[in-house]
């Protein structure tokens, strides 16, 4: 699969995961790699970029394993981005299904 395309999909998944619950970096990589063949090198940089772009904010919470852990929380801008992604993705999938399915595409 095209690397840029995959990065875009991972970005969408990261926003969606964090829109559902606050997460820390390790947990995000773990959640993604359970479901998709994810390139580990890209997840943290994506998290960081999305935070820089204002889609996430961070806060720390004490743990019992060592230093306080940094959590990512979705912002309003992030929620809007998530909705846009969802809509775009659904349109994209419908289009792909029509093309691959053939029938509706011919109409």
């Amino acid at each position, binding site marked *: 699969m095209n690397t840029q395309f995959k990065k875009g999909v991972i970005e969408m998944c990261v926003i969606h995961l964090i829109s559902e619950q606050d997460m820390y970096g390790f947990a995000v990589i773990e959640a993604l790699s359970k479901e998709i063949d994810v390139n580990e*090198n890209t997840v943290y*940089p994506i998290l960081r970029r999305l935070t820089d772009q204002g889609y996430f904010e961070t806060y720390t919470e004490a743990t019992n*394993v060592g230093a306080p852990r940094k959590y990512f929380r979705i912002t309003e801008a992030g929620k809007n981005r998530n909705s846009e992604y969802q809509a775009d993705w659904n349109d994209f999938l419908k289009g792909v299904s029509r093309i691959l399915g053939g029938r509706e595409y011919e109409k």
Partner: protein
Amino acid sequence: MKSKYLQEIESLLRQYQIQESEIKDIISDYDQMYEDGLAKTMTDQEIRDFLGDPERIVLELCENYERKQVRNKGHKLIALMPFIALIAFFILGHYFDLWHPGWLVFLLVPITALIVEMLTKKKRDILIALSPFLAIVIFLVIGITAGVWHPTWLVFLIIPVSAIIIGSKDRSIYKMVVALSPFVALTVFFILGELGIWHPTWLVFMIVPMVGVLNKRPLWKCLVYELAILCSIGLYLILGYVKGVWGMSLFVFLLPVAFAVLLDGIVIKVTGKSLEILAVIIFAIAVYLLGGFFAGAWGYLWLVFLLIPVYSIIRFSHRKDILVALSPFIAITVFFLLGYFANLWTIAWLAFLLIPITAILKSKN
């Protein structure tokens, strides 16, 4: 292991113009993630695989950052080098009457560009990239000063040899020795040949299969092959020297071949990529030896060995990098052909300007 992993990321990050606080933040995040991995009883290697390769991580992180000092200072040096070379050339020529071979200073232009470019990439590639220049300088200096063009050309063997030794970091010592054995044999063959003992010095090429089967298992098969090769060499020499039948005695070399058929059925199992490279190496050696023996073209046919890295670049490099990667080899070929056949050494160096020109034209910046 954790500190090594974090240090790797940190030192790579420091090659970019990133604020200190940001670097600390990134390292702190990876520190936490590493601790999370340890808390889940993952091994260091598992955590490394899970979090990713430092070099790739930093590349992803720094897509929007500029490379700092190394690149900037390096580019200034590249830009200045033609002028430095020109000044040095005129000083050598004007004050010391060394116009020739003073023009060799112009080789500093591509050499500097290569070193600077490689410093921002993998350091082990520097020697591979520099080997053609090193070889050509040694070749020209010895050739011009002592007139010993042949067998000084043997110095060009450092091109494939350096690529074999440095090029493959995962290669085992044994595989490296196997890959180097033809070049060692070739060197010994020509050095002893020059002393007038071409025959039976060519038998030195038998070290290639002898080294090749050293890894053969079970051990008894290895011993059988070694003995078969040694016996055939011994028989060949006895029949040749005692009976004088050198031609007919060549058939004794069918002995190890017969053993190979009996023991292994001669199954040559080479995969696509290595088969292609092997074919190019064999082709280059064959062309060189045939051209050398039948046309006496030892002095220039070494250029055929450049086909090995050139083929590898064309076949396996990313398309957009091909032209830049090929430019040193094109430059060397043009330079040498103009110098060797037209005696235009003093201006042929201009061919090397092709390297920075190509790099600049292909550069995104």
